[in-house]
């Protein structure tokens, strides 16, 4: 019998953490993540989850507690949003540099100043270069499934994973979610094996200072310098798409739900125009694509599920193979240039035979609502400009008064 319930994204995330038998939780409340921190407290205090819950005094400490607990071999979980994530920034680098399989939810929210409690993805996008794997979810079911997958991925490649989902749009919206049987999750997700055991019989200093160059230990074995360690982290992320796809495939086999590995497509086979986004806005784009098709425009969607590592060139080029126009909708901006996803996508096309015109839209910042019909209008307006001979379309701010 399937266990289906109508729950919010935050509840789905809490449920997933419980199903993963997390052993240490450290969290600090921030809107729109708070409900997730509260649910986990309830699970722990009512005995539904056997875990240490450290109610820290700030997000910097939340990530630090996760680092400490993961170092000694516990499976850890945390979640945050917006400025909370930014406050963790230093520790995000430390977690990845320590090669710890920490899983964290980022409940995406706009970043101050000025204050906004509402959704965009500037928070997680601005943490792009911290060495974390970043996965963006479309709906509450994908949140639950992705967290379970995230532990498998993290504990295979020894890199932390950030599971991102849109604040309020998903975090506070109720949707039907199927909860997999705990025994099946345990089978899918074996117990965490730490890469290092801190033991009095084998004392070591973890993450001590090192020099630029490789250096021999007391037995003459030449050990890594700083660059070799950095290279190994890059190499782990470079190779992780294989793991991410395989975990997704095995998950689909075990639980019957396939969310796509690195990216997913919607009606792209014959599409002339491909809409692209991440998270819930990508789901909205599928509604827009269907509406465009009803108007005779052959539209499809490529949803970028994993932003770091970025999907490999071959997969990206294949996904956009037949597109004449690519329209991006991004809930973030790299100030002084364009949306970060747009830059990465263009880079992936370099040297390929893809010659599609690319038009980048910045949309929905600070929670401004983005409706599918607005996406439809934006696509039609882009196509009209392309038809009129424009090849270079500057980033457009959707539904924003720019006069």
């Amino acid at each position, binding site marked *: 019998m399937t266990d289906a319930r109508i729950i919010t994204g935050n509840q789905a995330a809490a449920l997933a953490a419980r199903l993963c038998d997390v*052993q*240490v939780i*450290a969290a600090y409340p921030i809107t729109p993540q708070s409900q997730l921190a509260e649910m986990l407290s309830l699970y722990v205090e009512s005995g539904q989850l056997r*875990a*240490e819950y*450290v*109610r*820290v*005094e*700030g997000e*910097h*400490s939340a990530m*630090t*507690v*996760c*680092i*400490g*607990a*993961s*170092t*000694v*071999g*516990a499976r*850890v979980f945390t979640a945050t949003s917006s400025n909370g994530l930014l406050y963790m920034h*230093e*520790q995000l680098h*430390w977690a990845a540099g320590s090669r710890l399989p920490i899983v964290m939810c980022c409940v995406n929210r706009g970043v101050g100043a000025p204050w906004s409690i509402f959704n965009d993805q500037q928070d997680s996008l601005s943490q792009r270069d911290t060495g974390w794997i970043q996965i963006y979810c479309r709906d509450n079911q994908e949140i639950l499934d992705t967290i379970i997958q995230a532990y498998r991925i993290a504990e295979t490649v020894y890199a932390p994973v950030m599971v991102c989902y849109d604040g309020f749009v998903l975090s506070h919206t109720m949707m039907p979610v199927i909860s997999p049987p705990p025994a099946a999750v345990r089978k899918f997700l074996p117990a965490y094996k730490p890469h290092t055991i*801190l*033991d*009095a019989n*084998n*004392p*070591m*200093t*973890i*993450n*001590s*200072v*090192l*020099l630029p160059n490789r*250096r*021999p*230990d*007391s037995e003459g*074995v030449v*050990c890594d310098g700083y660059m070799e360690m950095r290279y190994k982290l890059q190499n782990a992320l470079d190779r992780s798409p294989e793991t991410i796809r395989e975990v997704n495939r095995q998950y689909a086999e075990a639980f019957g739900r396939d969310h796509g590995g690195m990216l997913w497509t919607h009606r792209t086979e014959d599409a002339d125009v491909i809409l692209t986004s991440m998270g819930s806005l990508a789901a909205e784009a599928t509604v827009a694509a269907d509406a465009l098709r009803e108007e005779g425009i052959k539209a499809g969607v490529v949803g970028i599920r994993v932003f770091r590592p970025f999907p490999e060139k071959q997969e990206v080029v294949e996904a956009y193979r037949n597109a004449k126009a690519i329209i991006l909708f991004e809930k973030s901006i790299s100030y002084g240039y364009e949306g970060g996803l747009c830059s990465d996508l263009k880079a992936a096309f370099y040297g390929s035979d893809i010659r599609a015109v690319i038009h980048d839209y910045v949309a929905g910042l600070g929670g401004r609502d983005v409706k599918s019909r607005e996406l439809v209008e934006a696509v039609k307006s882009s196509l009209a400009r392309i038809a009129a001979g424009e090849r270079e379309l500057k980033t457009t701010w959707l539904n924003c008064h720019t006069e």
Partner: protein
Amino acid sequence: MPQNLFKIHEKEYVLPGTRACQGCGLSIAYRFALKALREDTIVTLPACCLCVLHGLYPLTPVLVPSVNNTFASTAASASGIAAGLAALNRTETTVVAFAGDGGTFDMGLQALSGAAERGTDFIYVAYDNEGYMNTGTQRSSATPLGALTTTTPVLTKQQHKKDFLKIMEAHQIPYIATTTPAYPIDLYDKFVRAKRIKGTRFIHIHTPCPPGWQYPTKDTIRIGRLAVDTGLCVLFEVENGKFRFTGRSRTLAEKGNKLPVVHYVERQGRFKKMSIEQLRQLQDWVDDRWEEYKKKAAESK
């Protein structure tokens, strides 16, 4: 008499080859602290002089498992290690955080306050060399009045040292102690006692620093003892709110023969620009605290 005078653990946990400076007060303190704590201990530390002492990867002279973390995070790192060990039923292991005064009085204060308020089961050690010595002797909130540092290079520090022990007392933790490597058996005793207590324990180590304080490296013990004799460093314990002087400070309190601070100040280059007025203010500050402590000791009887 010190309790462990004839019982000091023979095993060395800090082998020769540390990267600490000659005459380093921390080296002595760390050596005796680890002897008292023994094998089943995990140390966590931030970027600080101790991190330097631990050496350069892949070599370390320290025979206790240790975890580095960032500057502001020492107590949170200990919280995480303690929570992880608790989740894995490894509660017999002692978790010890070591940080300097910068990483405690300044940047690490939030994490330490949080961990202490939560009653985290660990020992927090603040080794106080009264400045950012690892980065080249910059001013911290633990630097005493009248001291030259590289960020108070002309006028000297204009404020008194932060009374951090009062902040820790306000957290109502089961054990607070002050000690100094100048009296290593006092230090050893306090770590042995702290290890036996559950909950958050705080040990402050007054830590003479030859390059930062500008005195000859052979004088570390002498300077440390003068700090005690003048009342700048007061040796005490606060156990479950009960205050008691220990060791040399108890003798001084009983006999009333505390030395004027000038005996301590005149031996250190860092005080060479100290004004007569500052010296008077420092003496008043020391005397006020001394009276406060005596009152506390009397109330705790």
